[in-house]
């Protein structure tokens, strides 16, 4: 009798312990995807909301709300690529709600296709953009559609797919500020950049 009670008690305790283990807490799995850790910023002068380094874990007084800051400094490569398109004919402009490459840009696209066809080591990024009207995510997809349209043309004219990556900035990287037809027209574009 005694041993059965003990066994029952042990079972209850075990179950309670297991219940704790099988909690609904989400596993932050670090296994599969590559982890990129940037060390949280040291205390900035002037205080404010500096992150406490994780090792200084004085638990009772640690505030519950702290957020560690990740600062992405502009790298050399990023600085070179950002901003306006490189000079020369590298921008294709689009009509509103359109992905059709107009006749006036066919020569530009053709020229790039030939350059790519004659040098298989050459790579291009095609960046699609929209004007600022409408939602950001939908515009990101529209910009992508513009980049893909240019990519298709380049492929048809001799470039191979692995030389090209189509990306989009949606409305996030306006070439021209302004909310009028002229400004909007100058933002509806695809830019070709060397990779």
């Amino acid at each position: 009798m005694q041993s059965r009670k003990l066994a029952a008690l042990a079972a209850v305790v075990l179950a309670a312990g297991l219940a704790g283990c099988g909690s609904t807490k989400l596993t932050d799995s670090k296994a599969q995807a590559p982890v990129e850790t940037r060390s949280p910023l040291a205390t900035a002068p002037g205080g404010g909301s500096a992150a406490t380094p994780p090792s200084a874990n004085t638990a009772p007084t640690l505030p519950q709300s702290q957020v560690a800051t990740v600062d992405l400094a502009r790298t050399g490569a990023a600085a070179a690529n950002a901003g306006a398109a490189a000079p020369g004919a590298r921008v294709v402009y689009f009509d509103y709600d359109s992905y059709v490459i107009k006749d006036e840009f066919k020569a530009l696209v053709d020229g790039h296709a030939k350059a790519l066809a004659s040098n298989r080591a050459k790579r291009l990024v095609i960046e699609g953009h929209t004007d600022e009207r409408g939602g950001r995510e939908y515009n990101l997809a529209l910009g992508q559609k513009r980049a893909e349209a240019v990519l298709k043309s380049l492929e048809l004219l001799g470039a191979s797919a692995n030389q090209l990556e189509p990306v989009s900035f949606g409305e996030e990287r306006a070439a021209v500020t302004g909310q009028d037809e002229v400004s909007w027209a100058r933002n509806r574009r695809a830019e070709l950049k060397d990779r």
Partner: protein
Amino acid sequence: MPRQLPETLPSLSRRSVVAGLATLATWPAAAQFRIEVSGVGARQLPVTVASFRDQDKAGVAVSDIVRADLERSGLFRASPADTALDERSIVTLADWRARGADALLAGSVTRLIDGRFDVRYKLWDAVRNEDLLGQSKVVPAADLRLAAHRIADEVHQQLTGEPGVNATRIAYVLRTGRRFTLHITDADGEGGQVAVASPEPIISPAWSPNGRRLAYVSFETQKAVVWVQDLGSGERRMLANFRGSNSAPAWSPDGTQLALALSREGLTQLFTLPAAGGTPQRLTSSNSIDTEPVFSPDGRRIYFVSDRGGGPQIYRVAVGGGAAERVSFAGSYNISPAVSPDGKLLAYISRQGNAFRLMTADIDGSGAVALTDTADDESPSFAPNGRLLVYATRAQGQDVLMTTTLDGKIKTRLLSSGADMREPAWGPYGR
């Protein structure tokens, strides 16, 4: 939304990282969400909130925070008391009732020897002439604001039977010149901290269900890539960096997977991906753009935007895939769906003429109603109690954040001078 740079902005271009952040830290943080009552709401419960004894010594105006929290919910009219009270006071509730209060709150903030603070309060019901609640919270100084928000939540719950969201947080993106920062603030707009600072845009922050991680889209590598970051540690990893654009992350309610918009196969389509990363499973196969997925709270359906019918409209599909059902019918351009926590309402943005306007509708799309009369609304997100929405809009030439009650009558505005605020996402309970 392009902007002129205000003249008062310091130049950020060539500063060192730390100096740049010091500048950021010493700028005045975004002020609180300011209340703008634009219509008479349902009867608001009058509550008197006395200054907490010694709150001035502690440096945090606990009673002010509680009053503002209660008012921002739209359910209370919160007034200060004209007498000094604390949680031990003997009060004649009939007197307070005669002065128009249905409830009375008083308390104290006492510094302990170890440097922490004991925040105590009492809530009285002046109508039924009884004590309702009495509590003590011991917190470090850095959590005094959080303690005040929790008190407001407890008062809110006690008096309405529903949870408040004052202790929750909001994530949003701030743009100043050519610098983008992903901020986390308290639900009142104060206490902002920076999760990410970048020279390139950040869009679409999405809270994990347990509030400890944010997924977001960053253009730091010159394309749209989805990252997941642990807020406490700053540890981050790329979740999706496939061919083309990777965007619109949305967590499943159990936190095990995300839905995303990926252009890896050409047109932007919906995929799901385990939260730990891996191979995406394609969810939609339309010959059009599918984007902006959001899970229903029961985890069984995904609402999303598709232009398969011509212009962008809102659809839903079972998480396992299959035929998609259209849900928005009025108007030619409907985007950015958000589903209420009880699964019964949809909030979204609809183009009406030249204006993009916040709407709510029943979950099947019927009964659509505009909540604003502004023209550039974006990015609606429900508070976890389903009673408020936060969204971005433009006012007086600036991008600002707003909250609104579901009837559109009580709105609050958060603005930061010299900076554009966008992409708000309301965090979950559980802090």
